[in-house]
């Protein structure tokens, strides 16, 4: 058995570029360092009469290396469109990498796909992954058969999971009548059915209310104690911070930092984060502040309220910065409403690494 539960080496996934529609990524297309819209090498000349344009490709994942220890929770953290789901989809054999290799539970994801599938419990697109016209129990019985669990064992296991996921009272109702949280619990129970050593959870708490999300995080921590290796993706900082033993920060298809949550935060420990609430913010003020030697990575966000802005920046020495800050802000109708000096969070690490906010 391989030393690592999951091991990826230089994983790359290129998709055929979508004509017209472009990305489903809502943020404006930023020129990627490479890959974006790059033209493929083109087919051999003799096929030209078939008139096939060399296909444009879009690089969703470009050279990801991960090694996950057995029994570890590994968090893949990144903004929308970073390539988190694409990475997970390659690991669970739904997608074939364009290049690079990966092993799950010691099995090659391309050549030993079925062994990989047997080793994994995967939650993708949570509530949409189960049948709404079946009951919770029917769903679990169905998937138990797909995972080749013998009927007698399956029956016990389904009961056990229904109990554990607190679905008992409504296990015989159609899933369409469930809440999002309950559906998510069915989806997770489904992933746990065959008691796979490794779990892949793609944004498991997405769309859950805070209480349900908290319960789910507790469950994930318990699953780790039971010996499962867990790879989870999220774009919630707190979630990654709280759950993960190690975090890989992924952006535009690359892992740009990989460390323990503490290790990541230590990278900018000597820095302080100044958070401001400002009304009537002007872009030029930001430029002026950035020109200061002590200030870097300034990010300004317009808030829901009319003309309120949340501005955060990283400063090496807040004492010397503050007077200059006050001076430049209280001008031309710009007004400081609130100010905090805080310790860096993972969000700030992300800003430090990429110069942009994780969530827009």
């Amino acid at each position, binding site marked *: 058995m391989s030393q690592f539960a999951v091991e990826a080496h230089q994983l790359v996934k290129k998709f055929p570029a979508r004509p017209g529609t472009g990305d489903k990524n809502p943020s404006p297309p930023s020129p990627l360092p490479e890959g974006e819209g790059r033209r493929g090498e083109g087919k051999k000349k003799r096929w030209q009469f078939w008139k096939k344009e060399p296909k444009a490709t879009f690089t969703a994942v470009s050279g990801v290396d991960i090694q996950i220890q057995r029994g570890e929770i590994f968090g893949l953290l990144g903004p929308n469109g970073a390539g988190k789901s694409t990475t997970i989809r390659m690991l669970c054999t739904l997608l074939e990498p364009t290049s690079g290799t990966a092993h799950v539970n010691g099995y090659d994801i391309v050549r030993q796909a*079925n062994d990989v599938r047997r080793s994994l419990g995967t939650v993708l*697109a949570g509530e949409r992954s*189960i049948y709404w016209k079946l009951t919770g129990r029917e769903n679990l019985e169905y998937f138990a058969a797909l*995972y080749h669990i013998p009927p007698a064992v*399956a029956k016990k*296991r389904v009961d056990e999971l229904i109990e554990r996921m607190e679905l008992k009272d409504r296990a015989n109702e159609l899933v369409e009548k469930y809440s999002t949280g309950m559906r998510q619990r069915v989806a997770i129970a489904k992933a746990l059915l065959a008691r796979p050593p490794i779990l892949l959870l793609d944004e498991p708490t997405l769309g859950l209310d805070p209480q349900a999300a908290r319960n789910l995080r507790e469950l994930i921590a318990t699953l780790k104690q039971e010996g499962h290796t867990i790879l989870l993706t999220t774009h919630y900082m707190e979630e990654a911070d709280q759950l993960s033993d190690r975090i890989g920060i992924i952006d535009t298809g690359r892992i740009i930092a990989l460390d323990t949550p503490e290790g990541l935060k230590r990278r900018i420990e000597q820095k302080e984060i100044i958070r401001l609430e400002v009304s009537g913010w002007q872009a030029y003020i930001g430029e002026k502040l950035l020109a200061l030697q002590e200030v870097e990575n300034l990010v300004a966000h317009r808030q829901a309220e009319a003309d309120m802005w949340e501005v955060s920046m990283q400063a090496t020495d807040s004492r010397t910065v503050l007077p200059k800050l006050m001076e430049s802000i209280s001008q031309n109708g710009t007004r400081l409403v609130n100010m905090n000096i805080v310790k860096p969070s993972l969000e700030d690490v992300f800003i430090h690494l990429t110069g942009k906010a994780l969530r827009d």
Partner: protein
Amino acid sequence: METSLIPRSLGQPGLLSDIRAFLAVVRREWTIFTRYPSWIIALFIWPLIFPMMYILTARALSGPDESGLAVFIATTGATDYIGYIIVGTTVWMWQNIVLWDVGFALRNEQMRGTLESNWLSPTWRFSYLLGQTGPQIVSMAMFIGVTALEFGILFGVRLNGNPWMIGLMMLAAIPAIYGLGFAFASLVITVKEANTFVFLIRGMVMIFCGITFPVAILPAWMQSFAKWLPQTYLIHGMRAAAFSNAGVNELLPDLIPLLSFGGFWLIVGYFTFLWMERRARKTGAIGQY
């Protein structure tokens, strides 16, 4: 609950497990099918509506004294023009419904999001398509049964043949009709505009296979084209079995091509599926909708 440090998988690979997985797909499909009550209405209405169009047209064209029917009987050799028409329309409806039901089986799951979660399991993937066919055949058998019943009661259509021979013809048609459905089901996953093919195929069956008329009245080039459509043999054979009391020997000229086309289309269907599966792994089509 057991807590061992490295969880051991409960799955047990093997042929038996794959068969059970296949049966689970059949059962799931049947359960979901029965939970949409509208199919009962469809089951009683549709068998009547489509053939009625042709039957009423035939009545109108045959003139007030129905003298035109004599001409029809002379060219077709059929004594019962209603029975003659409903065999053709039923075959057309069968192929049409299979193209929608089986053809969109995977596509609908793709849109619902469940296709990916099936694909994640170690089950033989063709089971997902094959398994949906079982309930479809049962519902189709009900459909054809209701057709026979309704036209028997309302129009006095009587079979003048061996019901087993009709059954045999239909059984022999299953590979061709469903093989085409498999090919189509795989195509719509990756080629989003594939709906057009449904219209193309059923249009071809409608015009070339003689659903309401004998193929012999078609121009020569159309007749030779009709020879390449398995539905032509099915319609011809079913009419012979239902109204001319044909036995196995008389049906062989229809049975043999039908089964050969069946083998061909099953293979095409299976390989299209494999092709789709490979392509989807490259383009990520399974997860898109």
